[in-house]
């Protein structure tokens, strides 16, 4: 059995500078055994580096540290500076984030590596010399670099020197802070390979903190996701990356070009906001937050095997679930099955593409899901409740649908204002003035002109793109949690289509609603979808994350589709 190398209990770090107090790390706990590899992911400022520095005991005097950092049964935080110095580097070493100033500019590489050895391992001069060269060899640097100054090295070489330096005293725990940022792809790969080789060889307990998913993915077995100083999700790395349970983790993954290589890049909306003492720290950026989230700080709770998430709603919600949906149409010669036992689910904040050729049952399914069409069998649950009739569409925070043909979905003799205001008026929401404000906002959102002249325009005077925008505005005025977009761009020219899609995706990203995007256009789906369902003859024949479906399709039909679309 591996012995526990490092254990962190309830670690909190508070910076107080000139009366301004920031809690950089909140109640962090984890344990690490020898040979284990732990990753810490988070945006800049999430507390990764502070955690590393706290473990090393290197925080400035302005930082207040509480909790326990136990190594070998000793609480490092209670040791004196001298006692800590014996442990630093010899037992726990750190590879700092690579920066120009991280190595002393006036000392040679040799001197900077040798001084660690001199300090901790009483060696003769010759042995030290030999060890320095051996370390350089280990990290793949020629011995001629030993006598160089840091400014003569490239970024990748500097990273290697940092690693050689960290390994100089054979530590048991190695903390690696952002090992691959600012490196080119080749250097990045080399460094990752180097670190993982060394970790195996020396059976190191490794902590890698990074904001690069691919690095974490390749270097670690366990992962913690940190947001504003607290852990919002932790679990096995594979599980966290491919089945994230916290909206923040999903946002990070969606922002990663390595993991999300097809879609447009969309970061997590809003930068870090000043946080309140109580409540979930992700509250303001979350797509599924409730009032409870503003008040209550969620604890880290188990949500699967070796998988924990800190979310008041138990992780990413299943917003819509269709089970066993059956629907058939009668024609003269018999029955045509449009949906055969369809199962489908949409999570909050997710863009799901439903792909199929015409006549595959997509639109039927969409109409059933939003309650417009009765089904022959099965059930549809929205936020855990069965949908009856138009329940879900005739309310705020429900489901809205936008149709393919905006020429027929909008009464062309209505004015723009009438079209957009209509749902509010029918449902008797708000006073006249309030409604007007809402219409203005909706038009603003879809980037249409906000003028009296435009309000009173009859819809037959609008272009196709404008009409589709008006239709979207009509849907969004009901603040839907799920927007079903049924082939909304298929009748538009490519430029208008691009504009509408970017607009829609931008709105989705900032407002956080989920979207079911129905299309027969694979390349389009590839650009926008998080998950994909492939439908044929009323059946779902393939489903999965966009990456897997497009990279490794399983069914023959999908393969053929991809081939036809030249993807």
């Amino acid at each position, binding site marked *: 059995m591996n012995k526990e190398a490092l254990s962190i209990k309830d670690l909190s770090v508070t910076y107080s500078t000139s009366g301004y107090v920031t809690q950089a790390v909140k109640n962090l706990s984890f344990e690490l055994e020898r040979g284990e590899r732990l990753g810490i992911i988070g945006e800049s400022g999430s507390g990764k580096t502070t955690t590393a520095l706290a473990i090393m005991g290197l925080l400035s005097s302005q930082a207040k540290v509480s909790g326990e950092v136990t190594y070998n049964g000793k609480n490092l935080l209670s040791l004196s500076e001298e006692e800590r110095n014996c442990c630093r580097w010899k037992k726990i070493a750190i590879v700092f984030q690579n920066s120009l100033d991280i190595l002393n*500019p006036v*000392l040679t590489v040799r001197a900077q590596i040798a001084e660690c050895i001199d300090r901790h391992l009483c060696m003769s001069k010759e042995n030290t010399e030999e060890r320095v060269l051996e370390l350089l060899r280990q990290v793949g640097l020629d011995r001629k670099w030993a006598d160089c100054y840091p400014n003569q090295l490239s970024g990748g070489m500097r990273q290697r020197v940092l690693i050689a*330096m960290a390994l100089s005293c054979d530590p048991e725990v190695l903390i690696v802070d952002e090992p691959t940022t600012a490196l080119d792809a080749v250097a990045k790969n080399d460094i990752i390979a180097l670190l993982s080789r060394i970790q195996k060889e020396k059976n190191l307990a490794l902590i890698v903190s990074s904001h690069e998913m691919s690095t974490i993915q390749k270097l670690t077995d366990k992962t913690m996701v940190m947001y504003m100083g607290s852990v919002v999700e932790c679990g096995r790395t594979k599980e966290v990356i491919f089945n994230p349970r916290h909206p923040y983790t999903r946002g990070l993954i969606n922002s990663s070009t390595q993991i999300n290589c097809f879609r447009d890049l969309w970061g997590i909306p809003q930068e870090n906001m000043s946080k309140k003492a109580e409540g979930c720290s992700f509250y303001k950026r979350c797509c599924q937050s409730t009032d409870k989230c503003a008040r209550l700080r969620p604890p880290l709770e188990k949500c699967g095997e070796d998988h924990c998430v800190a979310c008041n709603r138990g992780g990413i919600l299943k917003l819509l679930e269709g089970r066993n949906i059956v629907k058939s149409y009668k024609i003269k010669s018999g029955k045509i099955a449009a949906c055969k036992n369809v199962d489908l689910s949409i999570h909050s904040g997710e863009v799901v593409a439903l792909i199929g050729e015409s006549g595959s049952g997509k639109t039927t399914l969409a109409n059933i899901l939003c309650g417009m069409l009765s089904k022959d069998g099965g059930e549809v649950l929205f936020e855990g409740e069965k949908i009856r009739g138009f329940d879900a569409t005739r309310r705020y925070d429900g489901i809205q649908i936008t149709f393919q043909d905006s020429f027929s979905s909008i009464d062309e003799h209505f004015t723009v204002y009438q079209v957009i205001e209509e749902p509010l008026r029918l449902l008797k929401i708000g006073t006249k003035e309030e409604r007007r404000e809402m219409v203005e906002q909706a038009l603003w959102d879809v980037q249409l002109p906000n003028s009296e002249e435009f309000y009173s325009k009859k819809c037959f005077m609008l272009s196709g793109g404008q009409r589709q925008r008006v239709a979207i505005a009509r849907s969004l005025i009901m603040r839907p949690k799920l927007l079903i977009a049924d082939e909304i761009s298929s009748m538009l020219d490519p430029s208008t289509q691009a504009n509408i899609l970017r607009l829609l995706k931008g709105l989705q990203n900032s407002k956080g609603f989920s979207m079911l995007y129905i299309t027969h256009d694979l390349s389009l789906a590839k650009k926008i979808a998080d998950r994909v369902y492939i439908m044929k003859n009323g059946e779902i024949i393939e489903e999965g994350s966009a990456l897997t479906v497009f990279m490794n399709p399983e069914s023959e039909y999908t393969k053929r589709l991809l081939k036809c679309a030249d993807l």
Partner: protein
Amino acid sequence: MKTTTKKTLEYLLTLFVIITLNFFIPRIMPGDPFTFVSSEENSVNTVYSDEEVARLKEYYGLDKPLAEQYGNYLKNTIKGDFGYSIYFNDTVLNLIGGRIVYTLPIALASLVLSCVLGCLLGCVSAYHRNRFFDRSSYLLITVFSQIPSFIIGIFFLFTFAGKLGWFPLSGAMTIFATYDTPLAQIRDILHHAFLPVLTLTLAHIGEFYLLSRNSMISVLSKDYITTAKAKGLAKKRVLYVHALKNAVLPIITRLCMSLGTILGGAVLIENVFNYPGLGTMMRQAITYRDYTLIQGIFLFFAVSVLLMNALADILYRKLDPRVAQ
């Protein structure tokens, strides 16, 4: 190699400009050497007749057109002939040589003292940043360094030499004294040099203090200091090897450059203490419009500043591997 040639050319050009200015500035001043040449300071001013002035001008070559004088001056300077003082009746080289032995020691002594003390205080201050020692020494030194050095000098002269009589009022050594031992002579010289050196040191301690404090503060917040601490190195090694080696770079440059300002400062201070150095002689040379001597002294100052600049360049290259490349 290329940069060295470029640098050398730069220095030569600067030197040429200085020599030229050196020639013209005394000549722009009103008056000429012969208005004063016959008179001692504070005595009856006898005046040369016009014929005598013309003869003397011819003798010293001052009647020739300015361009020709300039040409001759350049030629002689390059040959190492700095001319003959009209007032002191000696070669300029001899005169400067005779005075420099007084000026250089007090300049160097105060330079070293102000640098060492200033840096020491600066480093300690930086290490205890924002604590009592730092705040009080910072305040004291910034205020103090704003007072012009000659005022400090006059104050010392009045109190310690005049009122209290602890130090001699003027000169570099007691006049007409005979010494029993060489030690007694040295003691006498130190006694005379004490106040000028103290004044000059105080005048320059501020710049070294502020510079080293700033430099140390910025170095202490650098990433490589965190790296050094993380390695578990002893505090001494972190401070004296990792921090100081970096912090000392700007100080070295300043030290070299300061020689120029400290020589300038010495001119004032020597006059306050009536110290028989280059400074007092320069005042006299200017009073008597002793063109050749003025040129000589100015040139000496200019060349020494240039040399120190060059030294700073060379040292910096040696010490900072980033510049060395």
